[in-house]
């Protein structure tokens, strides 16, 4: 029997244009006519991807952020075309790149089930037939005729997943949808996934949750830098992935040079460097709820009387999560006038969750005035960590503004 999915030499090229906005602008287009064409930088998000998927196989796809997993899924689900290559599919593909696509806040739960189901490729009679099952799975029958805007976010999510779980295509593509919802609902979702793969359907499952991948998929595919690194038994591939992750950690040693920050008001005043430690190990890769230590070296031309040093941790969308400075903690570092020194922040168990990249803005000032503000001066990745041993990564929504006890030292 021929494989249900044949992926041959798939590559995808993007052009990086550092100056322009992500979308085109008519004015820029007009002025570009008179400008010399600036060379665009090529970027291959995927390069010569090749693999087959057999009927009934469930394949895990793993790799770090930006490895090209999502691009591959977008090509498979025909959202974006490949630059080169060919895919032959011998079954209908449905993709769940995000639950709740097409949900509308003004429509009721019932209306949204129909709308969402239809967008996902179900026919009306199919939705009619499975309507009760969907409602039952979501557990929202009491609110079916209430507009979605009055639902809690958890209810919206359950409803969305319930629709998606009843799609029944030959090939189902799932991207990171298990990282949501409460523990009980996640168990239900995992159960549903198992049913899907046991029912002879083909499943492509992308996740950072290695536990879930190993549990659901016999085979896995590791993508790195847009290429297939390994394919085979999930256990082996995951091991391979973890090894490469650790190797890279040693290269990125958690040291950040901050001397050439262009927004510095005065070249001589401000931060010199930053060092990041996870459990006293200098690194760019942080594990959630581990010991967080940030050392900031600074120097100044005139003695500082009332030092203010602070930082804000932001998620990959630049949304602030935790902000800390010595003033807010009631700590005045003015015991003696300083010209240079090192401030160390230490948090015993930094409560950030998710699997994203994180950025840190740094502030340096004297009295009420800021001299050096470095946006995204420090960056680190959060290592997926199944801290509750539940086969899932905690929801980034759990990120709090309360870091607990913060220890500040100055030397």
């Amino acid at each position, binding site marked *: 029997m021929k494989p249900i999915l044949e992926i041959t030499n798939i590559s995808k090229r993007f052009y990086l244009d550092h100056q322009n906005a992500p979308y085109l602008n008519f004015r820029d287009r007009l002025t570009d006519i008179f400008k010399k064409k600036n060379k665009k930088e090529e970027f291959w998000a995927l390069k010569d991807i090749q693999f087959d998927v057999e009927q009934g196989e469930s394949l895990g796809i793993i790799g770090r952020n930006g490895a090209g997993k999502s691009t591959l899924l977008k090509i498979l689900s025909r*959202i974006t075309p490949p630059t*080169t290559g060919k895919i032959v*599919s011998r079954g209908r593909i449905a993709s769940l790149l995000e639950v709740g*696509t097409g949900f509308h806040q003004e*429509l009721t739960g019932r209306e949204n089930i129909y709308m969402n189901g239809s967008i996902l*490729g179900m026919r009306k009679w199919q939705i009619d037939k499975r309507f009760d099952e969907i409602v039952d799975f979501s557990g929202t029958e009491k609110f079916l005729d209430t507009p979605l805007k009055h639902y809690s976010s958890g209810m919206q999510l359950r409803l969305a997943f319930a629709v998606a779980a009843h799609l029944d295509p030959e090939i189902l593509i799932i991207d990171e949808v298990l990282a949501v919802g409460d523990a009980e609902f996640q168990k239900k979702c995992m159960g549903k996934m198992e049913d899907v793969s046991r029912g002879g359907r083909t499943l492509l499952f992308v996740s950072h949750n290695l536990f879930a991948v190993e549990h659901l998929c016999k085979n896995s595919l590791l993508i790195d830098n847009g290429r297939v690194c390994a394919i085979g038994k999930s256990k082996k591939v995951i091991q391979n992935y973890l090894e490469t992750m650790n190797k890279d950690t040693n290269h990125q040693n958690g040291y950040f040079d901050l001397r050439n920050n262009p927004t510095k008001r005065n070249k001589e005043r401000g931060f010199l460097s930053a060092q990041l430690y996870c459990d006293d190990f200098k690194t760019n890769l942080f594990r959630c709820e581990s010991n967080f230590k940030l050392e900031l070296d600074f120097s100044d031309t005139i003695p500082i009387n009332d030092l203010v040093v602070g930082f804000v941790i932001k998620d990959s969308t630049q949304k602030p999560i935790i902000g800390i400075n010595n003033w807010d903690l009631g700590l005045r570092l003015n015991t003696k006038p300083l010209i240079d020194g090192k401030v160390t922040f230490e948090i015993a168990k930094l409560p950030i969750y998710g699997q994203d990249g994180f950025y840190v803005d740094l502030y340096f000032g004297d009295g009420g005035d800021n001299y050096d503000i470095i946006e995204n001066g420090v960056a680190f990745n959060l290592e997926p960590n199944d801290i509750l041993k539940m086969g899932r990564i905690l929801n980034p929504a759990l990120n709090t503004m309360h870091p607990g006890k913060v220890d500040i030292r100055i030397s």
Partner: protein
Amino acid sequence: MQTETKEYTILPQRSMTFDFQELYQYRELFYFFTWRDIKIRYKQTALGIVWVILQPILTVLVFSLFFGKALKVPSSGLPYPVFVFSGLLLWNFFSSGLNSASNSMLNNSAIIKKIYFPRIIIPASSLLVSSVDFLITFVVFILMLIYYQVHLDISQAIVFWPLAILLMVFGTLGLGCWLSALSVKYRDFRYVVPFGLQILLFISPIIYPASVIDSPWINYILAINPMYGSIILFRIPMTGNDASFDLLLISSISTSFFVAFGIYYFRKTEAFFADIA
């Protein structure tokens, strides 16, 4: 469950031909998008669907007072309110259809980036929303004809009204697809479209009859506007045939061009909507 299991291939350059079979498979999505937009549109409004009737009636009232009564604009022998309504009826379809179609791709960008379906469904179903409005106002228009006891040549109406509506739909569809694709690429068109429509309202023969412009050259240029032919055709059963064949031909040719080009341009760019939307 899905009976239409079919082997298909994903290749770098999609073919330019229309996959009508695929569109047919997705036919329900037309319905669902249209239904959603109609549902949402008048949510939390006290008057609801009454707005569909109220808007054109108020416009007709204002136009009749200023252009008909005060400025005494000629109206081809028809009562001025009937005359201006016959134009506005078609114009409102064009204007609201074009407006919503050109914004439709951006408004649905979240869906476009996540799920595949034939993209043309989005601008097309926003025209379907305008068609519902059109049908409702059309009934109001018929009532108005009865009220003013306008002489209507029924046999001409059977020929010319469908033709006029066809031109109107084609013109709106072509321009709508083109503008929806353009506004994904260039956000400027969000501002260009309302402005362009404002100007087009005054250079279409809506508030005045086409005959007031006596320079043939200006008429030839004005006839490129797809709505020109449509409005003139629509009025023939009420005013008698005083339309110039040349001008109607120009308008029909330009409308056909807009449809062909609009859909061609849409097809050409749709593959990359998800990358730039």
